[in-house]
């Protein structure tokens, strides 16, 4: 699927990056689920527990749990341990708020995109993607 372009249905927050995907099979609570100091998923009940989100394009169904959730993601972004972008199948307020607050406080940039459901389901961990606002394409070497 070289140079395949994904159908982006909503740009919650624009930006550019090129990085490798990490697909989370289940929603994650950042509070208690993400260690900002390492960027690792530490929720023992999460299927991707132990994986590191730092510098990855996080492909995830959304967030769950505590209403204090955005803080841990903001802290991770400030420490340079946050993801490079987030791709969702539907809008997620927690991630949008975290991305905006990190931008306001620390000048970080975290693109947050919603993509079409079929395209979302085709994403696998370890793919190279290039994101430029509403343009998301597979950047794997042919």
């Amino acid at each position: 699927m070289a140079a395949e372009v994904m159908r982006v249905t909503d740009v919650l927050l624009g930006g550019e990056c090129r990085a490798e995907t990490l697909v989370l099979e289940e929603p994650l609570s950042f509070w208690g689920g993400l260690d900002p100091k390492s960027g690792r998923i530490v929720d023992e009940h999460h299927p991707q527990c132990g994986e590191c989100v730092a510098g990855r394009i996080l492909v995830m169904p959304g967030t769950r749990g505590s209403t204090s959730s955005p803080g841990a993601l903001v802290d991770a972004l400030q420490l340079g341990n946050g993801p490079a972008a987030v791709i969702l199948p539907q809008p997620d307020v927690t991630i949008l708020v975290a991305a905006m607050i990190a931008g306001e406080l620390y000048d970080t940039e975290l693109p947050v995109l919603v993509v079409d459901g079929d395209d979302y389901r085709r994403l696998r961990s370890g793919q190279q993607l290039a994101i430029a606002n509403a343009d998301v394409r597979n950047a794997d070497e042919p």
Partner: protein
Amino acid sequence: MISSTSKMELTAADQATLTGGRGAGAQLAMRLIVRVAEATRAPRLIDITWAHVGSSYNNGQANIDFAEKLIELSTRVTVPTTLTSCSLNLQRLADSEPADRKASLRLIELYEQMGCRPTMTCAPYHVRAEPKPGEHVAWTESSAVVYANSILGARTNAYVEFLDMCAAITGRVPDTGLHRTENRRATVVVELERLPATWLADDRFFQVLGFLIGRTVGNEVPAIVGLPLTTRTEQLRAIGSAGAASGSLKLFHAVGITPEAPTLEEASQGRVPRTRMCPGSGELRAAAEQLGASDGGEVGAVCLGTPHFSLAEFEQLMPLLEGVHVRKGVRFYVSTSDHVLGQVEDHGWLDLLRAAGVAPVTGRCTYYAPLVAGCDGRVVTNSAKWAYYAAGGLGSRPTFASLEDCVRAAVSGRIASDTEFWADGG
């Protein structure tokens, strides 16, 4: 920097805030509110009358930097704003870790400077006049959100930290989710049939029912049919807080009891709910067992007050403590707010509590970084939410029991078994 223009239709006042007319802090807050409104496809912003804020909790550096930034921009809240619980036991500050104590107290001070009331409670509905049915508020804290929506008939989504404070500053929120009438209709009917009459009269049942409903209904809005008309506010609160802990319950209707459900038809706004569930006694028993229903044993600690104990609950507790004393070596905590503890004192109950060996805890909850970690024996609670959340922090399963048995356990050092009660309704 995020743009200060919006595709959404905004009032002149919102537009002025968005372009900096009310200062840079209000501008930042409005940018967030508008962007969230756009992302959630809200047609407009609406006024709120009360914000309940959790950004003041010392979760990490972001909370401190956010507050400092708002202060630097001379930001103030524009609606009455209460603060949710903190990590400190305000009755014994010395117990907390020095770095957390310093940061938490600093955060509380900064939020006070911005005009917030340092209520430090997960039960804001105890500390000022409750919002009226239909009133829009912006609350954080899952148990408070479900309480506002279900029991009070007020309207709120579950506001995450930072966004809650932006609502407090602007007094505006996106008109989405549970602010809108059509999203409040019951989509699932929960019918209570053929359950032991003793269960329906017992506080434990409401905790377990909420736990089961929360785990089952996902993001649906349940209407419960068959609760006794004598169901008390605290019992409804138990359904909500347990369901918000085990799942993501934000609104439920109790037909014949809660404000938006005089009848099932009204609760479902004249439409037919998608699904119907009829939890049997077997399912409820299994849920109780999963929560840690008591099978008897030695007790090390008792924790009450999740969410924060109400005055009515203290009224229930006080006669049970008459003429008894907590056994040596057993810890007995009741979490509440400073406000309610003040009322307890006014009733002359505080000295009686202390004389009986009960330690009131204010400001915080006892389930995270549990005050009771490492104690010998079981930890007993009457709260499903406590039992659900503390399991991780304690490293052992808590025991779930009635208020009466919690007190007896604290006094005798042994918790009675609930096996019979859950087997056949006692």
